[in-house]
């Protein structure tokens, strides 16, 4: 994945990070190592990485279409039939990851692994098949769920992190990541509290490591619990930390669940800015006691708002108007072509997830952050299910 963002307040607020080689006065034991800057990626290697992704995407499609045919009439047919493209894509991505690491080529081609670009483009295309009326009716329960879930999970994670003795900044990163939307929330929080890069790398790795199995576990639990598509979608969107993993799990749970999961996830994503501002103010005025710190402005909300959500909304408006104009008989086959394009971008994103996974950062910080994240994830699952069951019971898709 491409590297993360940070708030503009980092370099303008007082108490910005120390120069290379100098001690960080804010954190007594944090003598910062000097590192050479990373060289820019080579175009040839980036193209090679893209070709690899296209090859793995084609193989994903090939397996999805042919494995059920090959296994028909065998004991494997029961397992093979429900396995859909996210499973093949991630598995092939992980396989590719192992090969690239073994051949020492991963860093050379990594610039091609644009998970966010692919998934966001796919989400915009998904908007075309989501009726605008669904977004309008789902908005209120989605916002209520997001506000309650984010607050409760953030505060629980913060509390558990404190009990297990985590550093305040890492607590902020983990609390943001598990309660809002994964890596982007951790990045926003990292900028807000001026966390160390190592802490952000660690939090980001934890997010991905927990998100991957949730792609398969949550749809399985949805089946086991017999949840309706609406409740399933709301639960998946409110729980899984990354947009790409939400799309994967939603796909496995069904088209209706996918639509609602995307709406719920987008609503949560949109609240990143609010939390980033609150964290900035809390750390500046309370934790670091810098009364002269610049107060975060409302403009920060717009800067942090995930703009691709606007694309999703615009596509929904366009799709809804198009179908109203030409009628379902003519329009639906055309929207199906847009859905095929969306699937293509999702496949690329899921392949990229597998290719990008890095577990090295996880070894650095010990068991406590893993325990905090794990406990918070379970809390998120339970509270999320309760909220989804109440707010989306009887919701018509």
């Amino acid at each position: 994945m491409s590297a993360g963002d940070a708030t503009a307040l980092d370099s303008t607020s007082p108490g910005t990070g120390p120069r290379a080689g100098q001690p960080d006065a804010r954190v007594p034991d944090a003598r910062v190592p000097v590192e050479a800057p990373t060289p820019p990626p080579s175009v040839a290697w980036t193209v090679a990485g893209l070709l690899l992704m296209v090859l793995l995407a084609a193989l994903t499609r090939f397996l999805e279409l042919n494995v059920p045919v090959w296994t028909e009439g065998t004991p494997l047919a029961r397992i093979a039939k429900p396995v859909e493209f996210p499973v093949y894509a991630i598995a092939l991505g992980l396989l590719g990851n192992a090969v690239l690491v073994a051949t020492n080529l991963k860093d050379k081609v990594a610039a091609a692994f644009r998970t966010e670009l692919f998934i966001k483009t796919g989400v915009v295309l998904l908007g075309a098949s989501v009726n605008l009326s669904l977004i309008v009716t789902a908005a209120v329960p989605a916002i209520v769920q997001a506000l309650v879930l984010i607050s409760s999970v953030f505060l629980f994670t913060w509390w558990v992190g404190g009990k297990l003795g985590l550093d305040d900044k890492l607590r902020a990163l983990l609390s943001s990541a598990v309660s809002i939307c994964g890596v982007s929330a951790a990045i926003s929080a990292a900028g807000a509290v001026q966390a160390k890069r190592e802490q952000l790398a660690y939090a980001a790795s934890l997010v991905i490591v927990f998100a991957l199995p949730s792609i398969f576990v949550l749809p399985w639990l949805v089946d086991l619990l017999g949840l309706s598509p609406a409740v399933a979608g709301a639960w998946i969107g409110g729980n899984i930390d990354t947009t790409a993993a939400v799309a994967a799990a939603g796909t496995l749970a069904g088209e209706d669940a996918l639509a609602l999961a995307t709406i719920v996830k987008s609503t949560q994503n949109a609240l990143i800015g609010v939390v980033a501002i609150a964290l900035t103010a809390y750390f500046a005025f309370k934790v670091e006691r810098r009364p002269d710190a610049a107060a975060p402005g409302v403009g920060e909300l717009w800067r942090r708002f995930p703009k691709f959500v606007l694309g999703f909304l615009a596509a929904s408006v366009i799709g809804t108007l198009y179908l109203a104009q030409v009628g379902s008989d003519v329009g639906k086959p055309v929207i199906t072509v847009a859905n095929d394009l969306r699937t293509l971008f999702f496949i690329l994103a899921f392949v990229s997830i597998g290719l990008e996974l890095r577990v090295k950062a996880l070894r650095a910080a010990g068991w406590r952050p893993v325990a905090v994240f794990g406990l918070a994830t379970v809390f998120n699952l339970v509270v999320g299910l309760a909220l989804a069951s109440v707010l989306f019971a009887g919701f018509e898709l």
Partner: protein
Amino acid sequence: MTHISHDPDAAPEPASGSGAVPRPRRRLSEDWIATALGLILLTLVLTGVLADGLVP
């Protein structure tokens, strides 16, 4: 993985000399690129330029 982007689900760069997460370089936001790309593709589909069979 060298550049900084304002991207959800993005892993950060390796540790830098300053230790703190730095300010992003000015570049066109990936969010806007994805939005533009998605809407352009949708337009091509709805106008029939990208038809069934052309999409792999």
